[in-house]
Structure formats: structure tokens, C-alpha cells
């Protein structure tokens, strides 16, 4: 068995990747009570935001198309539910292991750190898709969601490319809990809140002050949400999407490479200063 350890490096890394996915799936199953709580919280938040659309029509009168506004808000809230889930799962992987007390065990394993990050990211995407589809299914019981005219393949492509961007963002944010055992998670939460504010999740970014629009342009969520709205609400086709999608994909890959490099540097710093230890 030990000989096998040295002979098939790629296969070994694939097994380790699955190890991270399987571990997180098992943990999700065991924490089912909390999963239920977070699902209920996400669903009610999404519904509450979507009802603002119908409420605005009632308050403002016929000048507002309540159904269109509801769909606009629903797309924003669902895409954000998905992207933020990816961000949280990846950025909090160090904090989670530190809390469980397993961080030293995982960091002492012979698998590559890249494998660790890929495994966690893979789970984050699977988990994010499953959770968002469940919220969408539940929300469709409350609202008529007309998808006639929507360009679903284009929407799928936006989401796929957006996932890459947020994986990179999550890895980069995951550096903070490595550097700051206590305040790191607080920082990632502030970052997520900032992304929510500036990325046009519930409103066009043009309504933001000029300096916030600069931040909006730096957030990959802005482009993903705009792209998804274009594809679902206006049926914008792939021919018009090639360039922005390419930019987003390149940015995402760049973010992953930079995030992975930053993570390895932070790991080295943590090992030099003794910050891997769970007590910090």
C-alpha cells in the first residue's frame, strides 16, 4: 500500500480531491439541522426581497411593472445566494478546520495544497448549485417565473464562468483566516457584505455613488449578475456575450492563480509564526 503512495501521483491527488468532497458531503449530512436553518433563512430572504417587486407596484401604481421587477430581484438574489455560498465555503475552509481542530492534520497530509483547494472548490460548486436549485424550486411555488424568451444556455455559461471568478475570490479571501486566526473570518464576512453592496444584486450599479461604482467594476459578481439578467430577462444571446465572458473567465483564472500563490505564502507565514495551531 505504501508503494502505491509513491507510484501514481495524479491518481493519488484525484483520490485526495474526492476525499475533501466526500468529507464535506458527510459533514453537510451530519449538520442537517443547521442546513435546514440556513436553507429556511436563505429562502425567506429571497422571498422577502422578491416581494419588494410586487410591493413597489402597489405603492407606485401602474408606472412600475411589478412582475418584471420581481423577476429582476429574484435573479439577483438567487445568483447572489449561489456565488456567496461558493465564497463562504472556500474562504472559511481554514477557519472551519481550525474550529474542528483538524487543521494540523489536514495540513500535514502529503496531498498538494492545490488538491485541497480544488477539492473544497468542487464541493462549494456542487453545494451551491444544489442549494440554489432548491431555493429556486421553493420560490417558484410563490411566484410565476416566466422563462419564455430566456436564453438558458447563456445563463448557464455566465454562472459557470462566474463560479470560476468566485472560486478565485474565495481562495484569496481564505488567506485571511490563515493570517489572522481570530479576526480572519470577520474580515471575510465584511468582504462578502461589501460585495453584496456594490455588485448590483438588488439594483443597477448606476444608482451608486461614483466611488462605489469603481468598486462595482472590480467585483466579478457585478458582471455575472448583469449577464444573468441579460440572458434571463432579455434573452441576450451568446454572440453578444463572447467578449465580456472572456474577460470574466480570464479574470477568474488570474484570480485563482493569484489566490493560490497568496495562499501558499500565507501558509508559509503561518508555519513560521505558529498560527496553524487551532488556539492561534
Amino acid at each position: 500500500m505504501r508503494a502505491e503512495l509513491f507510484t501514481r501521483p495524479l491518481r493519488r491527488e484525484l483520490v485526495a480531491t474526492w476525499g475533501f468532497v466526500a468529507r464535506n458531503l458527510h459533514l453537510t449530512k451530519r449538520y442537517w439541522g443547521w442546513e435546514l436553518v440556513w436553507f429556511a433563512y436563505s429562502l425567506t430572504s429571497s422571498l422577502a426581497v422578491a416581494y419588494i417587486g410586487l410591493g413597489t407596484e402597489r405603492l407606485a401604481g401602474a408606472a412600475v411593472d411589478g412582475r418584471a421587477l420581481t423577476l429582476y430581484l429574484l435573479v439577483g438574489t438567487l445568483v447572489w445566494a449561489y456565488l456567496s455560498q461558493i465564497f463562504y465555503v472556500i474562504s472559511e475552509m481554514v477557519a472551519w478546520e481550525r474550529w474542528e481542530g483538524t487543521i494540523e492534520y489536514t495540513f500535514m497530509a502529503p496531498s498538494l495544497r492545490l488538491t485541497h483547494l480544488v477539492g473544497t472548490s468542487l464541493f462549494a460548486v456542487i453545494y451551491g448549485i444544489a442549494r440554489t436549485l432548491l431555493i429556486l424550486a421553493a420560490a417558484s411555488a410563490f411566484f410565476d417565473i416566466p422563462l419564455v424568451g430566456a436564453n438558458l444556455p447563456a445563463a448557464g455559461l455566465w454562472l459557470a464562468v462566474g463560479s470560476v471568478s468566485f472560486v478565485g475570490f474565495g481562495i484569496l479571501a481564505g488567506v485571511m483566516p490563515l493570517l489572522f486566526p481570530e479576526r480572519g473570518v470577520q474580515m471575510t464576512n465584511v468582504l462578502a457584505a461589501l460585495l453584496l453592496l456594490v455588485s448590483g444584486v438588488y439594483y443597477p450599479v448606476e444608482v451608486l455613488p461614483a466611488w462605489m461604482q469603481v468598486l462595482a467594476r472590480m467585483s466579478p459578481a457585478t458582471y455575472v449578475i448583469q449577464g444573468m439578467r441579460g440572458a434571463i430577462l432579455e434573452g441576450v444571446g451568446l454572440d453578444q456575450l463572447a467578449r465580456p465572458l472572456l474577460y470574466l473567465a480570464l479574470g477568474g483564472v488570474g484570480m485563482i492563480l493569484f489566490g493560490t500563490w497568496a495562499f501558499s505564502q500565507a501558509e508559509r507565514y503561518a508555519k513560521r509564526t505558529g498560527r496553524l495551531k487551532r488556539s492561534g
Partner: protein
Amino acid sequence: MYALSCESLTKSFRKGKGKRVQALCGVGFAVRAGEIYGILGPNGSGKSTLVRILATLLLPDAGRAQVLGYDVVRQARRVREVIHRVSTEAAFFKKLSPLENLLYGARLYGVPGRKVIRRARGLLAELGIPEDKQVRPMEQLSRGQQQKVAVARALLIPPPVLLLDEPTTGLDPRSKREVQELIRGLRDEEGTTVLLTTHDMEEADRLCDRVAILDEGRLVAEGSPRELKEQIRTDGQPVSMEDVFFALTGKEWDDEG
């Protein structure tokens, strides 16, 4: 070639503004293949820091450490392939079962779960973890049972070098004896090299071929338990490892923190 060696290993940590705590001051020793080598020392003597450096979890400030000829800093990944570490705190996902934790551990080493599941069950049973508890969350197991699962995890893919950081702390006498027998069996049957840190003098005496005494980050003595006892024997009276420890460190129990 030694299975494990350290030369002038030094490590300090920052504690508060401008203050540094010296955890290791020029520690050096070498462990032969198949040896059980004990590091004996009080709390805060630097035992865990030493093990963490050997396990590639800490970078030394100065000095060098090698495991099976691999440098722990420059060839960290190679080192990780040949070691396992069992620490005082049972590092597990508490909501996962012993079996799930073991399979996760095997996959991290690139071995598929299906290949080790039978061995995992067998090891757990051998260590006295009943079948029904093998699939229950770890948090429902006693401290002793959790520590046994930690040992089982380390043995699932038998490592050439095993780092045991106070593995029997907090165990009841029977569990302690079982774990000690397992360590001895591993050395005798598999030829595993074991580095064991402990502040249990009796354990060091019973289990270790050689012992080093670490005090305030410095090695103050090294030798077989018999040699160390001979060193301080003056009047022909029987000497215990406890006597050795206090004689060589110049400390009383009251001094221990």
C-alpha cells in the same frame, strides 16, 4: 542513516509586543531506524514545538531536521509521505464517525476508501471500538476511545516514522497500557521508528529504548533509561525516571507550570 535527526534546532515565538518566547534552543539528537525514542519534559518545555517542526507544521528559525534523509523544510512533502503524527488533542471532525474520519485520512494519503475500509474496521475493533460506535459521531465517544481512533488512523497506512505527541495523556490506565502495547507491537512487527513525547516518567521508562530530557527548550540529558538512572545513582538505592528527571533538571514538582 538515521531515521530522524535534528541539528541545532531553534525556534521562538512572538508573545505580545516586543516579547519573544524561546521554545527550542539548539536542540540536536538522532534516532536510529526501529527505535522508540522518548522526549521527556514538563509542560512548556518545547516537546510539541519539536514534534510540529518534524511534522512540517512549523518552520524552525535555525538548525536542521531530517526524516529518513528528507529535510523538513526543503522536502516537506516527502517528509509528509513517511510520517504520521498523533497529538494529545484528538484532531477529528466531531460530527463524523470514526470510520468516516479514517476513510478521509486514507484518501488524503491517496488511498481510496474501498481499499482500506476492511482494515479500518479491523483496526478499530482491535483497539476496542465496538462496531456500533464505529459509525456514530466521534463526539459520542469517550476521550480514551477518541484517542484510540487517533492511533488507528495513524496505523491505517503504516508509516515508517510515527510521531507521538503525548498520545496517552488523559487515558485511563487500561487504555494507556493498550496504546503502549500497540506502539511496542508496531516497532517490533513493522520496524516503525517512533518518536514519543511524554511527561509520564513510567511510560518513558517502560517503552523507550532511549530518552532525551528537554527542559526550557534545551536537551539536558540523553541515554537509555538504565544509563540515565546509573548517572544519578549514588548509594546503590533503586532510582526511578522521576528521580532522574528532577536530578537532571534541578526542578521540583512545584516548579512545573
